[in-house]
């Protein structure tokens, strides 16, 4: 059992969850993830570590409420427990002193780039963070990212804040103007990471993406998370999650992420019915 210390909604649908996990917090490195199983009936889902504190013994993950597991997590309160938590898993990000580095984040990936950006800054890089959201109200963590970057560029799809467009737009602009960028890290949805990789490819700027395949065990046992990188089959959980975005077969990844769409909807409906039903039973018991 792992205690939830905080559950804060950051923006609609995205929650910050802080969990007591001293052993994981001591070992965590940027780019790694943990596998969470909320309760006895739960799935095992991977969540990127957005932050951790070795001294305090805590880890922080950002979740986007999409399926049953993330809905269950979002419904927990501080003081509640999750049943299982394994980590830190996956290979850490390959960080070094590159020069000028862009860290692009979208959706829940905005959280995931914080530790990467912080470590890159610590290594003496010039760090430019670019975050994207559909509208202004979905932006979060600007102040936190500001602290770990030399420049923070905010983009919104509707132009309600900052640059009108998506994270790859200002990146492309910089590259087109001849700006020197030595490395790009992108965390976000499949589409965002694909577009970012496509934007940098003509300029030959190495772009590392954190893939979000479906997983079960997260330790290399099942092969559910297999992706094709440079024509070779790799397991996201143990060979990744970070891969060269110019080598990833995006179409395969997108297809494999849809395997359980029907079941995910069915599962969510089942869970919601259970939830509506439960409080009524409690009232009757009182």
């Amino acid at each position: 059992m792992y205690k939830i210390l905080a559950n804060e909604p950051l923006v609609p649908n995205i929650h910050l969850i802080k969990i007591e996990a001293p052993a994981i917090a001591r070992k965590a490195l940027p780019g790694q993830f943990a596998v969470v199983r909320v309760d006895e009936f739960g799935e095992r889902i991977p969540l990127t570590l957005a932050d951790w504190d070795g001294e305090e013994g805590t880890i922080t993950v950002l979740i986007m409420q999409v399926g049953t597991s993330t809905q269950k997590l979002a419904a927990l309160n501080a003081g509640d427990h999750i049943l299982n938590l394994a980590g830190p898993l996956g290979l850490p990000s390959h960080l070094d002193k590159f020069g000028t580095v862009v860290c692009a984040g979208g959706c829940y990936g905005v959280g995931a780039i914080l530790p990467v950006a912080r470590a890159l800054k610590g290594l003496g890089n010039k760090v430019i963070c670019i975050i994207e959201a559909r509208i202004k109200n979905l932006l979060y963590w600007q102040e936190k990212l500001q602290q770990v970057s030399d420049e923070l560029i905010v983009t919104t799809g509707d132009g309600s804040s900052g640059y009108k467009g998506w994270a790859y737009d200002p990146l492309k602009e910089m590259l087109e103007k001849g700006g020197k960028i030595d490395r790009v890290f992108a965390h976000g949805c499949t589409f965002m990471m694909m577009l970012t990789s496509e934007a940098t490819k003509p300029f030959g700027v190495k772009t590392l993406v954190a893939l979000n395949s479906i997983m079960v065990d997260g330790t290399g046992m099942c092969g559910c998370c297999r992706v094709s990188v440079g024509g070779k089959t790799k397991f996201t959980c143990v060979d990744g999650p970070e891969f060269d975005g110019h080598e990833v077969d995006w179409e395969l990844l997108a297809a494999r992420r849809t395997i359980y769409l029907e079941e995910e909807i069915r599962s969510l409906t089942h869970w919601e019915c259970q939830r509506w039903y439960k409080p009524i039973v409690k009232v009757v018991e009182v």
Partner: protein
Amino acid sequence: MPRQDPKVRGKNFKEVALGYTDEMAVREANRCIQCPKRACVEGCPVYIDIPAFILAIREGNIEEAVTILKSKNALPGICGRVCPQETQCEIVCSLAKKGAPIAIGRLERYVADWELKHGSNPGSSSSLLPSSGKRVAVIGSGPAGLTCAADLAKLGHEVTIFEALHVAGGVLTYGIPEFRLPKNIVQNEVDYVKSLGVEIRLDSVIGKLATVDELLEGGYDAVFLGTGAGLPMFLGILGENLNGIYSANEFLTRVNLMKAYLFPEYDTPIKVGRRVAVIGGGNVAMDAARCALRLGAEEVYIVYRRSRIEMPARREEVENAEEEGIIFKLLTNPKQFIGNDQGWVTAMECYEMELGEPDASGRRRPIIKPGSEFIIGVDVVVVALGTTPNPLVPSTTKGLEIAKAGTVVADEETGKTTKDRVWAGGDVVTGAATVISAMGAGKRAAASIDAFLRS
């Protein structure tokens, strides 16, 4: 032994073999001639005193039978179900030549089930040796790890098992299905190991959360690696990453560990499939095919490149599968998978095979018949070609010699590896093998670790 009717059992996940009644057990025990040869004991990888426990059944002293079994085997309920007795203790039985050998496995299961029904026999503190003050870390809670931990605890050492998954049992939990090995049996045997004083830490991925070296520096006097063979092999042919194609590990883990057969009550889904092809001819292939059938598939094929006699699966399991209606497509090997524009598998192109000269395994080598390609329509495929050791621990442990196949090099008799204070046993050393051979290795390593700790 009575079994569920094939038509009924093909639709449920309850145990297929129902076990002996008291009368049946005594009748079978009475057949044992208590011969002086005791070849069965030599045939058993953990040297259970088989004639003695059978005699105890005959005399109606089942409690004594439990004690005899458990003095050598901490997991009799599991072994009685999944050991290949027909190639170990039963094949050398004196009665084997005169017809049917004693059904040793079924009697072992009977005794274990009796214990479960009549209240378990917890590891009483009197059977444990006084504390040695030494600490051992066991990595993995499969058959090798559980056995090694149980023996070390009985010898007075403080043992901690580190398990990566959220339930203990390793392959017994994630791999072997409920209908062949009920999970309450596994849980019961795990509880027995805990009752000996062994601590089991779940969700602990060694190699990530801590390395073997950190365990050795952090107060453990010795480490036993029982991490199994958890890395699935794929065919490496075109279309293998299409949706609907599973490794047997994934398919079985979803069903057994995550209980996808109870979806949506349990959250983990699985694709049921209308026509399912399972590639391979081992026990894991049989398990996957029989799971697919129980999930509701209309047709399930076993696709195997050799003929029936070369199949590595136990004959009993092949017969069970056949009775339940699994269709065997022998001397058949996939060439490529064909998908639709949404990325889902729709068909499999196969070669017909023929058998040539024996290969290194002693079995006749399968050869492609030129121009024999044909198509089988499928919507789910399970690849059950075998597994190799998971590199998580070996790759993060300095000084551990690793063989070409990814297995850890260890002394066959003692389990000692090339690294000081580190032992290994089970599938991580041998590659995928049987539950009982892993238990045998766990036992031998425990003896060697004990000798080291006392020296």
